């Protein structure tokens, strides 16, 4: 039966994350952002991450037997929104961690799970680096080549925009199989510990926003990966467990935009209630009301869609992979639009780096690049329509 009430457990976790964001992240967000603006490899708030882990938040997606809570997609979205509203860069790192821990737990072999999950779950500062294609990109764009060698593989090439690249202790990367490759399909997904020989972190990307979410290049030169470090059924052609996992958690990418835009809206309401022009708070001017309403519509509708898509990911009975993509598309367009309006409502203040709205806007623009471009995502969704039911 259709219902929109969080469980008590979900509500308590949401409250916990909101408080964590407000107390631990918001106070340091602007300063860390500025520092990272001067030095893109700048300081990551490791202390905050430790605190996050010690509250049990890091392990939420793990199965209970590994100390987790089997967190579903909806819960992931609800909690991520709270982090995104506080500091989008840190939140994106949290998202990576949850996503990849879930990937190993759900798609890894028994050996992989028992090798890596304990390491992950017991280390409060264990971040994983994401070099996979994600739910939106296409295998054609892969720049890493995997060549068979005995029972293992040799990886060569360069991977850009590896999420948490400079912070991670373990990488998960997709590579394209060279030549005729046998039963594994056209791509493979490898687990690559940081210290693997032949792997070298490259340039850290100097981004306009989400600066605490460090992304970097990763160079592979004759990097040997044993066969047992390849994720089973990671075919990359959309039918494998990994592809299905990524499609399933697509709505969590929608939560990026929802959280950032919500924060910008909240700040805008505060500001317009305080700022007086024309003899009254500008909130009371119809045109300002109008803009706030457009923002509120955007945020709420996006959240409704993300939640609905997340529910269908969790309850696979009516699952439709297109729904998750629509939530990413809508939320990702919505967030920069809402933050841009927030900047307008702040007038000249919106343009000043001592006010947070410009940071929300810079962070929100990241959402357009969940795929290579926003059009990549539109095309991916369009392709799904060629054959499926209406």
């Amino acid at each position: 039966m259709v219902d929109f009430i969080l469980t008590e457990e979900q509500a308590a976790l949401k409250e916990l994350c909101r408080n964590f964001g407000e107390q631990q992240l918001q106070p340091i967000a602007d300063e860390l952002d500025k520092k990272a603006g001067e030095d893109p490899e700048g300081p990551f708030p490791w202390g905050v991450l430790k605190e996050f882990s010690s509250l049990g938040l890091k392990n939420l997606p793990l199965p209970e037997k590994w100390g987790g809570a089997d967190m579903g997609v909806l819960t992931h979205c609800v909690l991520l929104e709270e982090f995104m509203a506080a500091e989008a860069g840190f939140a994106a790192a949290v998202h990576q961690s949850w996503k990849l821990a879930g990937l190993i737990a759900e798609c890894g072999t028994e050996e992989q799970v028992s090798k890596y999950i304990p390491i992950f779950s017991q280390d409060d500062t264990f971040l994983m680096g994401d070099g996979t294609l994600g739910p939106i990109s296409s295998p054609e764009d892969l720049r890493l080549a995997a060549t068979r060698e005995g029972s293992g593989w040799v990886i060569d090439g360069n991977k850009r925009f590896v999420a948490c690249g400079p912070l991670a202790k373990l990488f998960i990367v997709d590579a394209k199989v060279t030549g005729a490759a046998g039963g594994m399909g056209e791509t493979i997904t490898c687990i690559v510990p940081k210290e693997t020989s032949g792997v070298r972190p490259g340039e850290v990307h100097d981004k306009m926003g989400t600066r605490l979410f460090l992304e970097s290049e990763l160079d592979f030169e004759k990097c040997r990966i044993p066969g047992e470090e390849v994720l089973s059924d990671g075919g990359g052609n959309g039918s494998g467990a990994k592809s299905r996992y990524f499609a399933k958690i697509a709505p969590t990418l929608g939560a990026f935009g929802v959280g950032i835009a919500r924060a910008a809206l909240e700040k805008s309401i505060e500001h317009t209630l305080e700022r007086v022009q024309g003899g009254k708070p500008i909130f009371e001017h119809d045109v300002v009301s109008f803009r706030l309403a457009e923002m509120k519509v955007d945020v709420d509708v996006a959240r409704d869609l993300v939640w609905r898509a997340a529910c269908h990911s969790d309850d696979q009975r009516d699952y439709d992979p297109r729904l998750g993509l629509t939530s990413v598309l809508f939320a990702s367009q919505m967030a920069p639009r809402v933050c841009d309006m927030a900047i307008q409502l702040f007038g000249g203040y919106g343009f000043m780096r001592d006010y947070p709205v410009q940071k929300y806007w810079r962070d929100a623009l990241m959402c357009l690049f969940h795929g290579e471009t926003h059009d990549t995502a539109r095309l991916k969704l369009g392709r799904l329509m060629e054959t499926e039911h209406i």
Partner: protein
Amino acid sequence: MVDMRLTDEQLELQSLVREYSREVLKPIVAECDRKSQSDPAGCFPLDALKAASKLGLRTLGLPKELGGRDIDTLTHCILLEEVMAVDPGFAATFHQVWRLAQHIGREGTEEQKKKFLIPFAEDDTCLISIGQTEPESGTDNTFPYRGVDGGIKLSAVKQGGEWVLNGTKHFVACASLARIFIVLGRTDPHAPAPDGATQFLMWGDTPGFRIGRTHDKLGGALLMNAELILENVRVPESDILMGVNEGFSDKARHYGRGAPMVATFGLGTARGAYEAALSYARETSRRGKPLIQNDAIAMRLADMLMLIEATRSAIWRAAWAVDNREYYLQRDSAIASYFSTVCARSVCENAMQIFGKDGYTRKFPAEKFLRDALMTNHINNTVDVRLLKIGRSLAGELVSSL
């Protein structure tokens, strides 16, 4: 627990309505629309209404003891979407009759139910209509204006145990066909309209009551909007619904909470246009490949589906909140209905683009859906009034509402 799964009853009704819409309605609606161009009052397919009534669809809003299902708001929206995706005008007729039968069933006295709803239940072509808008009063009623000069002007004066009504309504949905009417009259001309209007129940054959011309509209032809003309119509005190001066009162709030349903107009219309465009894009080849393999077309389809799914999500939440009144916020309804208008216009225009020049002709369904979509501009509230309502509600909004 957050859940998006429909109940078995909802699923069963949904497939009944879908089947009816596709098999009974779909084959005839284009022709009805065409007929409306020359004969707006004569285009309604009464047989289709009868067929629906036999299936129990006309009376879904009736109380259970009278043979209905008393469907809740969410179910209303889910079923309405199915009909909307085939013909928005006909679908809006269902919307009216579901909602008004329920309104009388919930707010009416036993005597009123006996006088109006029992005959209603037995007559397969009986429809109900409510007259609110007048030539000089529209938004004033829905975006409450407190001046006594605004709002409803149709006069209602008490004479003995009866009220005498005089005046004109227009744009009244289903009026050309309906047999039962609710008419809003100004019972207190010295109070602002929100405090001085009353709902009167009457049969269409009441002396002095007549239907004016049927409006010749851009779209939604089968909704059969018409004028009501009341000349010394006498209504007994006992046929007042809810109470004198309570036409817009809190007691009327169930009726006032129809915004998620109205939002479904846009959603269903958009879905109809999307489905038509998707089929066309799959089945039509140009330069040797199906249109859908063309990037520009694929991206348009993606944008369309995105808006449709977003709108459906917002409507479901708003409808659920109406049904679970402790979570009800007028704003959520306004959001759904504002956004659904945006959705309908954008999706239907995109659909027309996908059809190419064919889309501009009446041989293909896109242009009709686009015309129908514009119905959502002004039903209940204008688009901008919906926005203003949302904006003004935000003063306390320092944390998110969900």
